[in-house]
């Protein structure tokens, strides 16, 4: 079957708008997810049960349910309830639901990456730092986190790439991302190959750039180069 690329030209505005929306969504979710993840990750490592249990429950819920359902729940149930019934205002646009759902989800995965990274640093490092007179916070900031960061980079890169692709699910709540452009084009023109290949290529370019960037960071922070 010949592929009719003309439909891409016809609907190019959707693809361009979709590209920016996908980049926007992923960037916000990564940044907010990092903050949520760092907080939750540290909570999980604390000695207080009152911090550990809520963080654990959060991670379990967001890692244990499908992102698609989280997006639908946030968009159609959580945000309207909070806005209309508690605050008495109109709920925001669909893209806000996308930001919220993706960030909350990313936070759960990133929390585990942080925890794993920090726990992988030998106990002696903390002991040594503390014996030098550092406070717990100082030891964390200057000794543990920099080392943990190097180990966290590959899984973080993984998570960012997964997030970029998973952001395609927000198309279900009418957010105009790359997938939305593909679906609209396919449904309106009955052409499937061209829109699907185009959207796949767009995601591929984005993930490729992202993965190279993470590789660059990994190389920069490589232990053997710095210390060797």
């Amino acid at each position, binding site marked *: 079957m010949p592929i009719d690329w003309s439909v891409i030209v016809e609907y190019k505005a959707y693809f361009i708008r979709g590209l920016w929306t996908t980049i926007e969504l992923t960037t916000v979710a990564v940044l907010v997810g990092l903050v949520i993840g760092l907080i939750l990750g540290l909570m999980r490592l604390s000695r207080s049960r009152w911090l550990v249990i809520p963080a654990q429950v959060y991670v379990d819920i967001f890692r244990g349910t499908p992102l698609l359902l989280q997006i639908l729940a946030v968009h*159609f149930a959580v945000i309207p309830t909070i806005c209309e019934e508690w605050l008495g205002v109109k709920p925001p646009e669909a893209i806000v639901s996308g930001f919220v759902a993706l960030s909350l989800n990313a936070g759960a995965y990133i929390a585990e990456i942080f925890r794993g990274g920090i726990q992988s640093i030998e106990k002696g490092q903390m002991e040594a730092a503390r014996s030098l007179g550092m406070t717990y916070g100082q030891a964390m900031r200057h000794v543990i986190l920099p080392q943990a960061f190097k180990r966290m980079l590959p899984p973080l890169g993984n998570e960012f790439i997964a997030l970029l692709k998973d952001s395609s699910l927000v198309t279900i709540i*009418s957010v105009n991302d790359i997938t939305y452009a593909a679906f*609209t084009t396919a449904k309106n023109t*009955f052409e499937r190959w061209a829109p699907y290949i185009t959207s796949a290529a767009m995601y591929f370019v984005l993930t490729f750039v992202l993965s190279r960037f993470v590789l660059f960071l990994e190389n920069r922070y490589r232990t053997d180069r710095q210390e060797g």
Partner: protein
Amino acid sequence: MKKLGVLILSLVFLCSFALTGCAKNNAGAGGIVKVGTDAAYPPFEKQEGDGKLTGFDIELMNAIAKAGGFEVDIQHAGWDPMLDAVKNGKLDAGISAISITDDRKKVYDFSDPYFDAKQLILVPANSNVQSLKDLKGKRIGVQTGTTGEIVVQKAFGKTYQGIKGYDDTPAAIDDLANGRVDAVVADNGVVLEYLKKLPAGKFKKVEDQSFEPEQYGIIVKKGNKELLKKINDGLKKIRENGTYKKIYEKYFGPMQ
């Protein structure tokens, strides 16, 4: 060598999977007409809790088959898979509140029209919108790929920022209730059905005279004249013997 063996074995498996997929393509065997639908569009078609398909289209298709002297097997396929399957012959026909449009006519052959539909604008009860034109600059919810979307695209441009495309009409109406869109443009049959479930007095419907009347038709694979004739004959018969009227009134009230 061992690795190569594993590779070849997995390739063989892959191919056989692909081939079983292809084998299912041979439709029409046994004389039963395979009809696809997207059973998520009440009152035209929906799936009951036990998986049974019901709705106006389903009853109509069964009546057409009975009158036309052929057997049908109606199955839920989903909108896009249904369109695809009829296009490539996996299914013989499709009935799913499909509006007859010029674009679709290029890809499918349509039966005679069996239902007159029109687009409705649904707005909150306090809205001052009186026609499609009044929606300029506003956010409009539609079901992606439906004539509702096409109508809005025609009025405000294909890439109008305010078009919000949803997977189904109820989702668009939910967001209308939430205030995320200012109006919904969709088929009258579905809007009226969904309105029954919503609190009374919260929404109102606006009819725009500029909306072109639409008709639903049954699609068959391009060039399948034989099946098309059988369907049209059946449709004609049930219109004449009153069966059509009976089914229509069951779902939509007295026929005008």
